[in-house]
């Protein structure tokens, strides 16, 4: 059971540059923490795949086990776990998130 879920996660984070596991969707986030990360990604103008854990109980638990991280949202860039809401916010403010995107070769909009 766990293996099937882990395989799906590996496939999703492997085939998309940026994946956000979140509550709700990018258009309609259902949790303030998820919404905060969506907002940051939108400000950066990067495309990302949103995966709504509220629609899939197996993924909701599976992603927590896979990452060893107890909370949602979870941001993956190029298959690598970047962090939850607090870390993403800190990294965006400090410019580290932008550096990471640059390093990974993902185009983004610089802040005006």
């Amino acid at each position: 059971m766990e293996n099937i879920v882990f395989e799906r996660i590996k496939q999703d984070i492997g085939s998309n540059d940026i994946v956000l596991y979140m509550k709700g969707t990018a258009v309609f986030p259902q949790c303030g923490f998820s919404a905060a990360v969506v907002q940051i990604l939108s400000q950066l103008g990067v495309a990302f795949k949103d995966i709504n854990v509220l629609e899939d109980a197996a993924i909701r638990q599976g992603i927590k086990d896979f990452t060893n991280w107890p909370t949602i949202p979870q941001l993956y860039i190029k298959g690598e776990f970047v962090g939850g809401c607090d870390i993403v916010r800190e990294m965006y403010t400090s410019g580290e998130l932008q550096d990471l995107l640059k390093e990974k070769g993902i185009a983004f909009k610089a802040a005006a």
Partner: protein
Amino acid sequence: MAMDAQTIANMIREGIPGANVKIEDLRGDGEHYSAHVISPAFKGLSRVQQHQLVYKSLQGKMGGELHALAIHTAPPKD
């Protein structure tokens, strides 16, 4: 089931010896907290690893009894 700030602080201090822990009840509702944790144990660790140490000290409460805990971690400044 909510947790009180003192319990959260104690669990983090027990899990990360020498940690300087400050807990704030963000909305005064016993549900939404922030934790500022400074510890030499964080030296050389990535942010993700630092937060994982905090989560580990909370022994599975995070995401269950403890719904919202914003975490800020850092090693002490020299």
